[in-house]
């Protein structure tokens, strides 16, 4: 049994079966890639795991706990965090505040603490700020901590999203197309970053990506889905040679 266990999950939208009896198992420390042609159901799988959608059938377990009936915020507090395909930063907040929000749920401030601004609150706020700045440093964003997140260049916004996701102290991190819109140089740096995150934070990473260079370069295990069903599972080398995968991407001969 792995840290994240998706069993026999099905999700229908009306007559469309977006995800069909899908199994997926991530072990602690995995760098796991989920790929597939456009419309294969990758983002739906993400939304099922993070609780944005509810499964019609099947179960999802995190570290042995059933999560597919919980709401997204509780799933986040149980230890799953994510980034978004189209960046969803808090646009009116500074870079630092974006990370602080995510740190919030790991702290216990009462509403009275907040209103009276007690000493307890201040020490906790300092702690949150310290943690947040440390994260920003890792992502090379600390120099711009007080700028509005909205004003960062695209690549930095992507990195900030990852930093924000890590601030929730997740067990499993879901990256939804982190390399989208990045140039080759940036993607290369991103690959290095993803690997170092996994090693430094001892977390498990699930990655959805279209950029094959990134997927093949960084993932150790890859699952290919098409029309909501698994068509291949294996190491990058195995996947590259798999005729079913080639057919799904390029069409049958």
């Amino acid at each position, binding site marked *: 049994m792995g840290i994240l266990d998706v069993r026999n999950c099905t999700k229908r939208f009306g007559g469309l079966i977006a995800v069909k009896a899908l199994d997926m198992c991530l072990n602690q420390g995995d760098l796991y890639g989920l790929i597939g042609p456009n419309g294969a159901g990758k983002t739906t799988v993400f939304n099922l795991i*993070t609780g*944005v959608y509810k499964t019609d059938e099947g179960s999802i377990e995190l570290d042995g706990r059933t999560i597919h009936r919980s*709401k*997204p*915020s*509780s799933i*986040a*507090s149980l230890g799953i*965090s*994510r980034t*978004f395909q189209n960046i*969803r*930063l*808090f*646009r*009116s*907040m500074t870079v*630092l*505040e974006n990370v*602080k*929000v*995510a740190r*919030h*749920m790991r*702290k216990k*401030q009462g*509403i009275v*603490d*907040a*209103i*009276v*601004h007690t000493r307890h*609150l201040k020490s906790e*706020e*300092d702690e*949150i*700020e*310290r943690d947040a*700045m*440390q994260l*920003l*440093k890792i992502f090379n964003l*600390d120099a711009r*901590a*007080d700028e509005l997140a909205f004003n960062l260049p695209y690549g930095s916004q992507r990195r900030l999203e990852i930093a*924000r*996701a890590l*601030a*929730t102290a997740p067990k499993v991190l879901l990256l939804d197309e982190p390399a989208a819109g990045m140039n080759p140089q940036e993607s290369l740096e991103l690959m290095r970053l993803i690997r170092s995150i996994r090693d430094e934070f001892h977390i498990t990473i699930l990655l959805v990506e279209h950029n094959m260079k990134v997927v093949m370069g960084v993932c150790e295990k890859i699952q290919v889905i098409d029309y909501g069903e698994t068509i291949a599972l294996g190491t990058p080398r195995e996947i590259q040679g798999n005729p079913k995968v080639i057919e799904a991407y390029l069409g049958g001969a």
Partner: protein
Amino acid sequence: MKKWVFWLVALAALAAMESSLRGLIGAYNYQIVILVGINIILAVSLNLINGYTGQFSIGHAGFYAVGAYTSASLVFYGGPAIRGATAFLPQIAQNAVLLLAGIFAAAIAAGIAGWAVGIPSLRLRGDYLAIVTLGFGEIIRVLILNIDAIGGSRGFSGIPQLSNFFWVYLVVLITVVTVHNLVNSSYGRAFISIRDDEIAAEAMGVDTTRYKVMSFVISSMFAGIAGSLFGHYTMYLHPNSFLFTTSFYLIIMIVIGGLGSIEGAILGAVLVTVLLEVFREFGAFRLVNFSILLVLIMIYRPQGLLGAWTLFRPRKAAPAAK
């Protein structure tokens, strides 16, 4: 500055102003100053929902009414008993006890109303939420119209006068400090994250339903307190004081001042209240002035007069830890 020093100075200053203000500016202006204060409480609290949490509520007058009528009924019907129990105190202290009891009851009742409205309606967004809250405000008003014990359509008269400049502006201070502290804490960041991106907020562990209801309840509690102060100043309440136009004025205040800015809400409250008085001779046409003002602001300064500008910046970032 130590907190208690601030409050002590504030209390002394308010008491001194209370004793001299009416003589200085006359009864008419004094009343306007009171109304400005009550509107500041309403606008700053509404800003918590509409400005910070980003939910569009136009039912604030409803919570204001709940507070006003709860406090007035408690003091009107329970006043003699409370006075009897506190007969050993001097008159002024008895009045304070009565008013505080009324304020407390108003806050609780309005808070419960906020919770009851918030739980089902905060699943709705944007226009739909606006319609539900508008409907709620009207329901409250019609309910009051039909309860004879609190005057119904005749209005509720004979409410003892208990609030004055001192109390109103003490509550103004408390409201401003509370909202300021709240929005500069984790709670505030949670509220703002919901406004900015609800899906991302939820994914970062912010329980959006809980925080939305929380901002609704806190905001309605302050509206209720404002209602209590209003009733105990004017000594007479009529459902027509709580028409949906009242909610609209409050929204105009925070939009003019700048959504999500405490100073903006204060500026808006002052401006709108004073302008309403200045334009009184125009009768119903004074609303036209606000339409024009709003159109001009939307064109030239869509973020409101103050925007999200704030006088009291939160603490700057600490230097990065090693």
